[in-house]
């Protein structure tokens, strides 16, 4: 089989044995036997470390859990600076977790987390920070300051945690370049290898924000909108 790998501005075609194996196994074979200069990242080989996220045929995958096919076209993740070949610089998207204040601020030791409460943010805490969501996000593509899918999912994980006593600061933080900038296109959900929907988490954060008195800044800003300049809660937005 033949696969094409994007390397800088050019594309290189590699010929591999036919068979059933993962893309990561194919890349390792190229690296060890065909071309020592091919650069990519990998780690656990079992889809939990997030290192080997890349794009195949224009869709984000983990190389260790994707079976390589004849004719596949492999590229680095989008929306992040390419360091070399399939390696991208993820510092900025990692930094979004800091900007979004994704942590417990004030621990409520009286909160009882029962089996049901545990399920509230179970899937969100499965995130492996592979960056597939940032690569697929059209908002992040045009606004590098957008907090982005995995950091907003992380914020929801902590905001929805009964043990967080003080969610106000996080809610305030995500008002700018955060939840209201998302177009709800759902790309992040489609590509997430852990079946997390950041889009759904962002919607939940919108609801929670309105409970804190925030409203969608896209409404009301035109003056003559259908709501007559009034927000959802009926109070004037000026």
């Amino acid at each position, binding site marked *: 089989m033949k696969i094409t790998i994007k390397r800088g501005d050019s594309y290189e075609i590699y010929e591999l044995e036919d068979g059933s194996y993962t893309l990561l196994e194919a890349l390792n074979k190229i690296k060890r036997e065909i071309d020592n200069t091919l650069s990519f990242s990998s780690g656990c080989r079992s889809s939990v470390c997030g290192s080997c996220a890349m794009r195949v045929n224009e869709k984000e995958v983990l190389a260790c*859990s994707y079976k390589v096919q004849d004719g596949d076209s492999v590229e680095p993740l989008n929306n992040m600076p390419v360091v*070399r070949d399939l390696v991208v610089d993820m510092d900025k998207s990692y930094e979004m977790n800091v900007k979004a204040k994704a*942590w417990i601020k004030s621990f409520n030791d009286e909160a009882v987390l029962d089996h049901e409460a545990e399920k509230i943010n179970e899937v969100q805490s499965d995130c492996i920070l592979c960056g597939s969501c940032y690569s697929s996000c059209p908002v992040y593509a045009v606004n590098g300051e957008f907090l982005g899918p995995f950091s907003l999912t992380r914020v929801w994980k902590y905001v929805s945690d009964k043990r967080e006593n003080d969610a106000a600061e996080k809610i305030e933080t995500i008002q700018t370049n955060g939840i209201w900038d998302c177009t709800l296109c759902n790309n992040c959900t489609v590509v997430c290898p852990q079946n997390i929907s950041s889009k759904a988490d962002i919607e939940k954060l919108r609801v929670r924000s309105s409970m804190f008195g925030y409203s969608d800044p896209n409404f009301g800003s035109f003056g003559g909108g259908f709501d007559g300049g009034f927000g959802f809660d009926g109070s004037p937005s000026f």
Partner: protein
Amino acid sequence: MKTDVLIIGAGGAGLMAAIAAKEEGVDVLVLTKEYPTRSQTCMAQGGMNAALGNVAEDSVESHIQNTLKSAHGEADEESIRFMCSEAINAVEYLDSIGVCFSRTGDGKIAQRRLGGASAPRACYAQDYTGLKILHTLYDRANALGIKFVNDTFLLEVLKDEDGKACGAKVLDIRSGELKTYIAKTVILATGGYSRIYDKYSTNSTASSGDGIAAALRAGAKLKDMEFVQFHPTGLKNSSILISESARGEGGYLLNSKGERFTDELAPRDEVSRAIDEQIKKGEDIFLDIRHLGEQFIDEGLPQERKLAKLYENVDPVHDLIPIKPVAHYTMGGIAVDHRSQTNVERLYACGECANHNVHGANRLGGNSLLEIVVFGREAGRNAAKTAKEVESLSVPAHTECFLDREFTNTVDFYKYKEKIGNLLYNKVGIVRKKSELKSALEELEMVKSLLPQMGWSDSSEIYNTNKQEFLEFRNIVEVSEVVIQSALGRDESCGAHYMEAE
């Protein structure tokens, strides 16, 4: 670049050390080979031991006794007492920073029984215990403003004229530049060395013993390096781990004739030896979970089904899973005292790269996550306290740089990486013989002498993983040498080190 406490490694131990050091009020900088959260810690599934007694009666004393027994007399009782007593605080701490431990109906942290435990003692977060602990520690580190430098490869631990650790020399993988970090104290949290077994390991490709080799070169002592834990059920072709829970839930081990040949729930070393004996007789070995049924497998072992399909092209609902025992956890490491300090002043170590004398010859399931939290914190606190006593930063003494040596690059190191893995698996593996250990050492010395004829063919300075893998290979050679020498130094069988008479 300067800081008070320099931490190398951002897995569970490194992050916990960073948090603890920062909370002592000193400047902390963490260097990591990739990014934080991509370490071996994310692969831990089973759980973290603490005698909470939430689902059945348990006591710290039982935890201590179980750990001592598993260690085969090779651990330090005082260290074990400390770790097991601190376990409850450690779990409470993790809970308070937001780790989503699985819960019982009445809101307590759920616990399950792992091998060698007298009670259900392992606190878990579904099948992602390590991942969730690791990520929450990372979030905590962010909350404290801890700085990370990603894509940084440790070359050498630096020492001053008086022989005290004072920083590190590293390769910036992205730019190819050599950089020097100066610090008052240094903590190594660089993980274990299972990858010396190359394709015969469940571990991440990153577990090449870089910190251990650098510590050795800096004059630190290593201890118990012969103790390597083999996991009975790695997938046959890829060595990817099929969790012990598959046997815990009732899976059988079968040979080619379809016969069961061992107690599937015996300790890991015993089961691994039983499988090894069968393989040496020419049998293929399989894990059979078909009788558990599709519904149960999808609910209880979904990850196992996915990995078996992906890497062995078998569906465990209908097919047998081909397996073999492979290197999984390394008990040995950098010798440290009760304060996590090595014999090199101002150099500390924690996590799988360190030897805190708590695992001895065989680690108890659920104690590795515990160790990284308890001793990561100790290392961080003690390194920070020492840093506060150090008045000014030292100047590192000159060290020779490996990268400045001549390499002719006429011999392919990738082939030898595989050869060393095969050599270790066959001669320094599950069952060992003195004559084989000796011949393994000779072969390894031969490979070592070839190092100047190896090197890297990629000439780019930017993200040169070919060069990085050669540097890892150097560490693999150095660590393997110590493993074989340590194995030769112990005539009797003990835990994971099993000697066969000739």
